[in-house]
């Protein structure tokens, strides 16, 4: 049977060490395939055991004891044991760490090796999301021998080993025959880097690439769906696509102005014009796929007249001018045009400023030099950013901060969901940002392929269950 | 039986008739001179024989070459004839050779094509031919490229190409017009020898009666595409039965009348008159072309320390070969070029010093007339503006006064004031040269430098312009520095002559004295080589 697969990925990873970079593109190649953590996130966002076969949590929720799997080997042949876990966690939270998600480890107080198969992690205070956090790509376990060279030659414990990286073109991984778990069906997988939709479609149609887990398919979707050769799966991502607003900058510091913007946005049209025509409307910063999600799209329904009235009440009967900075993805560049035309209809003239990611990071994210911008927040479960004081929204609400603090101290799932609900409502009512839609994940692959993830609880292409059916 | 017989040849290009009923015949070993003014159809007659006419040509009549009807022959037949039985030499030696091929290749090419000789054989024959035209391969290896030869040498190579296969007919279209007199004489000698030793027929095309008189057995005179006069050379030129032939011959020997006596240096100095222009030890140099990024060879000295005077009303001639520095000297006097050393005093003003005011003042009195009546006017301006250009230095003049002066200048040269509104292209060559003179006159200059003012003109027009120059001198007392390589013109117009060679004067003095009793060998060579109708006829 066929046992090789060529996948298309949009972005080329800057390097292949998930513990030293934020880029989702890294995880898309190596997560679950090459590297494993103590836990892993499953296809529906659930926490599953990985290198830790099981764990115990102390009564106060502060001490986690992980029981590690035996007979695990890194790809370079060195063995895996508790020392590697301690090394990896300590390295990630060290002062000079270059881990992009140091926050994941912030609550860890100590990591102790109990015996080669047992690790005890003590937290400063209980953290409900700790096990989930350990499933992130940034928390994978690396070996001290290879930690420094993982950027180029990633060495993990996963079912695939890294084979080759033709820079700018493709990355190849091959089956790891010494894997501790079930052998994977694919002998070889090649991640072909195809940034443009324009190139992706012909590549798929001509059969060069058999699988696009996240396909920038745009308007060709209808045609591909109609083609029996392909399976098209439209799933959800963790990407809340929002009209980010600078909450301290006049006139956006005025709640009425923000509410007016919220009323002026027609989510259906924005989704239709966002480059793919796909997406789930959202009314707050939370993934509709999450069980704690509350549908708040009705908080400020589309109502241009009301928007105008609110603007007048805020002292802008004739509207005002502002800028809208648009990073490169189509949802921003295309969606931004629709947003601008909708805001123009209520009197707000937006100047569109396209920016590269680097400038977006510098100007918008770091220097908070912007009025409005459109961006998709793809980190899972990231409502906590609204509590960060230096975050680029410039949002500050003690009520919200309190909810977050409570959340951190709660591990009971029902209570947590309740708190999440409160948080969602606060930001929705404050109209902190314009909440537009949850980015859809369009996965397209050969109809004979099975085992691909349908949703994207984390940005990853877990190939462990993928096989050809013929 | 004639070798070549052209009968009633007619030619139209596009819809324009060019040739009408041209009939000519040449016997083997005979030289037929075809003369006529520019545009009379001489070249196109020759090209008809070669069947190398421009696109869109339509011929009628017949051209019979040794039994072949050329106008009806196949292209393959023509290719076999060309170069093998009929050779042709063109006017411009500078462009007649392919610049990217060696001369050896270019001579051997025709030999190989027509005889099927091997490369080595062809090269050997090419070497022989080079020898024959006076370019021994020892000094001029076959591997040279055209740019490594002088104009005269190139013309020899062209002749070698044309004669390489002993053609029965050689057509030479103005083969010497572009060359200096001395070289011209050598080329004509070469052609004459080739005709004699190979009993080749030669169709020699020229506009110079002096040249045909010395070369041709028979002459055909052409005008506007028609043969007007035709017959044995010497009687035709001596008796001048046809009025047009007479006009041509008389114009070529025309001497303008002059009212006063010639102004000679000796006499002027005796009268202690102050010269209008005093040139002393003048040196002019050009920076040599840079070789490499940093090295520059020493500059090239175009004028090497010359001294002379010109007096008011005097006509001073400056003769010499191409490239000897005549134009450079003229430009320097005009202040267009800074001399490297020496003094230049014009009308009491020192213009060599680079003093802007002195130069500006001198320029009012100093004008120039160029050789090319087509190139000396900006085609986009009207005559009024062009002729008024020198008045730029007289800002004090009002608009009306400027117009008045232009009108008077135009009238002085025989044009009408109404011509001021026209563009230069609306004038003929001779009229344009009058315009150039009008422009020189408009400022009432004391000295006009005339750089080959008549060498581009047909003989009859040349005579008119010489008359005009002479007349203006007598009327306004203008002095001329008259640059020419045509000795007959110099003799006709000038008082004194300076003979220049490689930047230096080798001889000077009153015109008749210098030309009749040249003392320097170079002057002797020059005068001997100059074709002269009267002398040729006298010798015949």
């Amino acid at each position, binding site marked *: 049977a066929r046992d090789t697969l060529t996948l298309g990925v949009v972005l080329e990873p800057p390097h292949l060490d998930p513990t030293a970079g934020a880029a989702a593109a890294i995880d898309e190649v190596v997560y679950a395939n090459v590297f494993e953590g103590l836990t892993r996130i499953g296809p529906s966002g659930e926490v599953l055991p990985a290198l830790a076969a099981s764990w115990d949590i102390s009564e106060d929720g502060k001490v986690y004891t992980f029981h590690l799997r035996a007979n695990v080997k890194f790809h370079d042949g060195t063995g895996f044991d508790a020392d590697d876990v301690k090394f990896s966690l300590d390295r990630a939270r060290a002062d000079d760490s270059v881990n992009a998600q140091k926050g994941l480890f912030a609550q860890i107080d100590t990591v102790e090796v109990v015996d080669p198969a047992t690790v005890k992690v003590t937290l400063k205070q209980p953290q409900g999301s700790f096990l989930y956090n350990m499933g992130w790509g940034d928390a994978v376990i690396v070996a001290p021998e290879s930690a420094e060279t993982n950027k180029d030659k990633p060495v993990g414990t996963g079912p695939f080993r890294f084979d080759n990286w033709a820079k700018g073109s493709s990355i190849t991984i091959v089956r790891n025959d010494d894997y501790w778990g079930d052998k994977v069906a694919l002998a070889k997988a090649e991640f072909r880097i195809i940034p443009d939709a324009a190139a992706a479609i012909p590549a798929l149609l001509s059969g060069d690439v058999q699988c696009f887990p996240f396909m920038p398919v745009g308007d060709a979707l209808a045609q591909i769906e109609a083609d029996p050769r392909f399976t098209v799966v439209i799933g959800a991502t963790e990407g809340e696509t929002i009209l980010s607003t600078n909450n301290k900058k006049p006139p956006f510091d005025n709640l009425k102005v923000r509410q007016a913007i919220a009323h002026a946005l027609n989510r259906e*049209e924005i989704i239709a014009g966002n480059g793919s025509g796909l997406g789930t409307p959202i009314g707050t910063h939370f993934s509709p796929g999450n069980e704690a999600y509350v549908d708040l799209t009705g908080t400020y329904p589309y109502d241009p007249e009301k928007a105008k009235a609110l603007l007048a009440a805020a002292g802008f009967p004739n509207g005002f001018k502002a800028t809208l900075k648009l990073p490169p993805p189509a949802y921003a560049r295309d969606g931004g045009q*629709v947003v601008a035309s909708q805001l123009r209809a209520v009197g707000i003239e937006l100047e569109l400023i396209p920016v590269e990611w680097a400038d977006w990071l510098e100007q918008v994210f770091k220097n908070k030099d912007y009025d409005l911008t459109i961006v998709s927040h793809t980190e899972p479960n990231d409502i906590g950013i609204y509590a960060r004081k230096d975050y680029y929204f410039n949002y500050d609400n003690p009520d919200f901060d309190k909810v977050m603090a409570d959340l951190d101290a709660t591990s009971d799932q029902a209570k947590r969901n309740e708190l999440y609900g409160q948080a969602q409502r606060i930001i929705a009512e404050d109209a902190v940002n314009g909440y537009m839609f949850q980015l859809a994940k369009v996965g397209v692959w050969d109809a004979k392929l099975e085992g691909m993830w349908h949703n994207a609880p984390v940005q990853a292409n877990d190939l462990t269950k993928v096989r050809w059916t013929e | 039986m004639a070798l070549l017989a052209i009968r009633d040849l007619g030619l139209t290009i596009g819809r324009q008739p060019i040739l009408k009923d041209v009939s000519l015949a040449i016997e083997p070993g005979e030289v037929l001179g075809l003369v006529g003014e520019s545009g009379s159809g001489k070249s196109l007659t020759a090209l008809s024989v070669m069947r190398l006419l421009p696109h869109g040509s339509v011929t009628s009549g017949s051209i019979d070459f040794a039994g072949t009807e050329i106008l009806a022959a196949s292209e393959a037949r023509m290719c076999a004839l060309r170069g093998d039985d009929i050779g042709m030499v063109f006017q411009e030696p500078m462009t007649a050779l392919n610049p990217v091929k060696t001369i050896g290749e270019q001579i051997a090419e025709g030999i190989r094509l027509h005889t099927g000789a091997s490369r080595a054989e062809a090269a050997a024959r090419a070497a022989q031919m080079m020898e024959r035209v006076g370019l021994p391969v020892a000094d001029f290896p076959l591997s040279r490229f055209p740019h490594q030869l002088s104009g005269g040498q190139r013309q020899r190579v062209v002749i070698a190409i044309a004669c390489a296969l002993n053609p029965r007919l050689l057509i030479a279209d103005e083969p010497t017009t572009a060359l200096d007199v001395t070289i011209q004489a050598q080329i004509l000698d070469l052609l004459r020898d080739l005709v004699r030793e190979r009993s080749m027929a030669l169709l020699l095309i020229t506009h110079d009666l002096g040249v045909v008189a010395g070369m041709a057995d028979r002459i055909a005179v052409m005008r506007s595409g028609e043969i007007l006069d035709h017959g044995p050379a010497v009687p035709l030129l001596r008796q001048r039965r046809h009025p047009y032939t007479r006009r041509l011959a008389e114009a070529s020997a025309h001497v303008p009348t002059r009212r006063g006596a010639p102004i000679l240096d000796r006499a002027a100095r005796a009268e202690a008159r102050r010269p209008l222009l005093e040139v002393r030890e003048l040196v002019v140099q050009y920076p040599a072309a840079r070789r490499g990024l940093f090295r520059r060879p020493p500059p090239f000295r175009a004028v090497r320390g010359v001294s002379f005077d010109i007096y008011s009303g005097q006509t001073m001639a400056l003769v010499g070969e191409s490239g000897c520095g005549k134009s450079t000297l003229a430009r320097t006097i005009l202040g267009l070029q800074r001399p490297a050393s020496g003094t230049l005093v014009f009308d009491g003003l020192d213009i060599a010093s680079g003093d802007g005011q002195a130069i500006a003042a001198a320029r009012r009195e100093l004008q120039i007339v160029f050789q090319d009546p087509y190139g000396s006017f900006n085609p986009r301006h009207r005559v009024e503006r062009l002729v008024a250009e020198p008045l730029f230095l007289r800002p004090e003049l009002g608009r009306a006064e400027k117009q008045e002066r232009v009108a008077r200048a135009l009238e002085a040269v025989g044009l009408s004031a109404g011509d001021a509104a026209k563009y230069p292209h609306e004038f003929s060559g001779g009229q344009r040269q009058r315009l150039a003179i009008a422009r020189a006159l408009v400022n009432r200059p004391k000295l006009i430098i005339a750089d080959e003012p008549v060498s581009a003109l047909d003989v009859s027009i040349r005579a008119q312009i010489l008359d005009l120059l002479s007349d203006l001198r007598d009327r306004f007392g203008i002095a001329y520095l008259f640059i020419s390589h045509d000795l007959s013109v110099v003799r006709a117009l000038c008082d004194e002559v300076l003979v220049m060679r490689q930047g230096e004067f080798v001889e000077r003095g009153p015109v008749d004295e210098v030309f009749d009793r040249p003392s320097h060998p170079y002057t002797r060579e020059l005068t001997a080589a100059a074709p002269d109708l009267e002398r040729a006829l006298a010798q015949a």
Partner: protein
Amino acid sequence: MSDLAFAAPPTGAATFLRRALRNRSFVTGLAITALVALVALVSFFWTPYDITHLPVAERMKPPSASNLFGTDHFGRDIFSMIMIGSRNSIAVALIAVGIGMGIGVPLGCAAAARGGWLDEAVMRFNDIVFAFPALLSAIMITAIFGPGAVNAIIAIGIFNIPVFARVARAGALALWPREFIMAARVAGKGAARITVEHILPNIVSLLLVQGTIQFALGILAEAGLSYVGLGAQPPMPSWGRMLFDAQTRMMVAPHLALFPGFAIVITVLGLNLLGDGLRDLLDPRLNRER
């Protein structure tokens, strides 16, 4: 091109017109160019639809009676977009040509008039600019200032400078030794005045021909830059930008890519024909050949 190209005599307007009307490429080129210019002009006052309004529901309709060229992915009328896009294409190319001429021609004329080090400097400057293809400079410029039509203009304009400097210099160099220039110098006129009075009028036809060529190249370059996202930015419509938007949708809605592509081809074709025609009309040497 030899110096013969200058000698175009200012024959009477009537004869010129008669000759011009007989020149097929000139007439076709002029007609197309005039049409494009007209479309651009009209677009200031009228387009079939308002393109600032995005009727997303109407997106990607094929050509029909109501939308002659169909609608784009925001439901905008493509015909209106092409009309307004012509404005952008023309403006970018024209200003870029203006920059090229405005700086290049004086440079070239000065180099020819002064010679020596200035000439050398201008030539070396040309070499350097030529070493940076317009797209490379555009990439560098947009890297600094961000993408946008203005930066496209600058990038294309910079590339035009040496082109015009070369043409002007070559033309002027061929003129300087001519006798009518000498006559002007004898009349005491300075280099600047001679350049203005005698050189410029005689190289105008060369510049005009080069200008139309560069204009056409500018339109192509603008399209290319916009196509890779370095040129005109939304919401400003530009033909290259429309192609950029169309490329992912070509299979579903080929009309999105076809019409802007045709607009570019036809405009460039028109300008090239016009340039060829002008060259024929202004170069007497070619006239003689025909």
